[in-house]
């Protein structure tokens, strides 16, 4: 065995998990465990108490309707990857989820675990920011909701208190037929990406982009929306000049160096991923008539 000893509590309800969180010294919630157990094995973290929330079946499940998508925090990544109703409403989800780790880790890994671990290259937080999702959080004083921008507080730091836990994510899907694409580059399939780019484009039915969202993962301390790129595309027909302007605006992103290479290299990877995602999303938008409601 690799981790140092810890107390193990198997919560039977959200309230029980919250009570255990409040009552224990140095607690950690154990969701899918696909990052936490690796970190325990490596002794990067050594909590005194692990609170296992895998019995909280009320936190697992997907409700997907045109007005609202709700995904419970304990929904397995494999379930999100293969949900047909979600794929129809938000095609970026299956595209991006296929790139999360490997089949074996997606069978265990959860939405809430990935959101709270908040690796800057992780696909699920990038999708949350791309879709302007709302994160639902339970704490000692009840449930509250916060936007993805507020939730993604910093490098591997969710904007919730130590006595709180994520219970669900919600977002309003874009109009049917919107263009959607997610590309990333990793040295090996399943590794954390050097950079990823998610794109949503909604047309006005006449070939013009009415609404655009771009989110870049992996480059900085957190996933980042590319507001200048979205502005460059909105109102255009996705002409080469508009696409170039969006790509050019990547220069405004925070870009850190890592063992893959310096900021210039990683920025260039991000631009290439964005070029691919923009091209696929534009094609999707045109093919499906633009997503006019």
């Amino acid at each position, binding site marked *: *065995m*690799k*981790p*140092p*000893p*810890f*107390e*193990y509590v*198997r919560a039977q309800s959200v309230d029980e998990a919250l009570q255990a969180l409040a009552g224990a010294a140095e607690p950690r919630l154990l969701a899918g*465990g*696909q990052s936490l*157990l*690796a970190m*325990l*094995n*490596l002794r990067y973290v050594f909590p005194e108490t*692990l609170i*296992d929330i*895998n019995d909280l079946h009320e936190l697992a499940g997907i409700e997907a309707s045109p007005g609202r998508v709700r995904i419970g925090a304990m929904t397995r990544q*494999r379930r999100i990857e293969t949900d047909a109703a979600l794929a129809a409403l938000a095609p970026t989800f299956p595209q991006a989820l296929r790139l999360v*780790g*490997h*089949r*074996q*880790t997606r*069978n*265990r890994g959860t939405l809430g675990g990935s959101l709270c671990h908040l690796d800057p290259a992780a696909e699920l937080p990038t999708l949350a920011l791309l879709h302007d999702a709302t994160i639902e959080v339970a704490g000692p004083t009840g449930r509250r909701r916060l936007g993805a921008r507020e939730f993604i507080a910093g490098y591997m730091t969710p904007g919730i208190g130590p006595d709180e836990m994520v219970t669900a994510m919600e977002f309003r899907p874009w109009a049917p037929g919107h263009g959607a694409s997610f590309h990333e580059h990793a040295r*090996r*399939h*399943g590794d954390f990406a050097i950079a990823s780019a998610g794109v949503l484009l909604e047309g006005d039915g006449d070939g013009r982009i009415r609404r655009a969202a771009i989110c870049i993962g992996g480059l900085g301390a957190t996933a980042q929306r590319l507001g200048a790129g979205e502005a460059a595309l909105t109102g255009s027909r996705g002409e080469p000049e508009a696409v170039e302007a969006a790509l050019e605006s990547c220069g405004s992103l925070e870009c850190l160096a890592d063992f893959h290479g310096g900021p210039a290299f990683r920025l260039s990877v991000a631009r290439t991923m964005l070029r691919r995602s923009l091209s696929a999303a534009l094609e999707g938008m045109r093919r499906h008539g633009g997503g006019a409601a």
Partner: protein
Amino acid sequence: MMHRVEMLVNGTPHAASVEARVSLADFLRHALGLRGTHLGCEHGVCGACTVLVDGVSVRGCLMLAVQADGAIVETVEGLAGPDGRLSPLQEAFSAEHALQCGYCTPGMLMTLEELFRETPTPDEAEVREAISGNLCRCTGYQSIIRAAMRVADDNRRRAGGSDGAA
């Protein structure tokens, strides 16, 4: 503190007391003596410890034994028949020389077992994607792909008659 766990492993019920920090893979090897499940990296990268829990593949090093309480667990020891006859996938591994040192083999087999249950006739891209989470440092993967495709081809041939009838 010890925790009582019960699980069905390859069809046999087991009950034991474990410390919470024991991984499922260590539990299978040390407590149950099922040493077919191998541990490589112990942080979820290499895939050698892949076993099936309630029918789906998991990393045996990234799941605690206490979490498998009440679960149905399948390991490489369960693939062959009670008489020792190899499963079609194991036969294909042998025929195509899909192993050299054999360290990754249990994980490869369990990963492919999950694939073939869902998709009896996968194409090569599906096989490659399925084993993308299993590292092999001997074979260069080509012989593993050939073994899997041999099983896929056999399955396709066997299904051939009923396909035509439909």
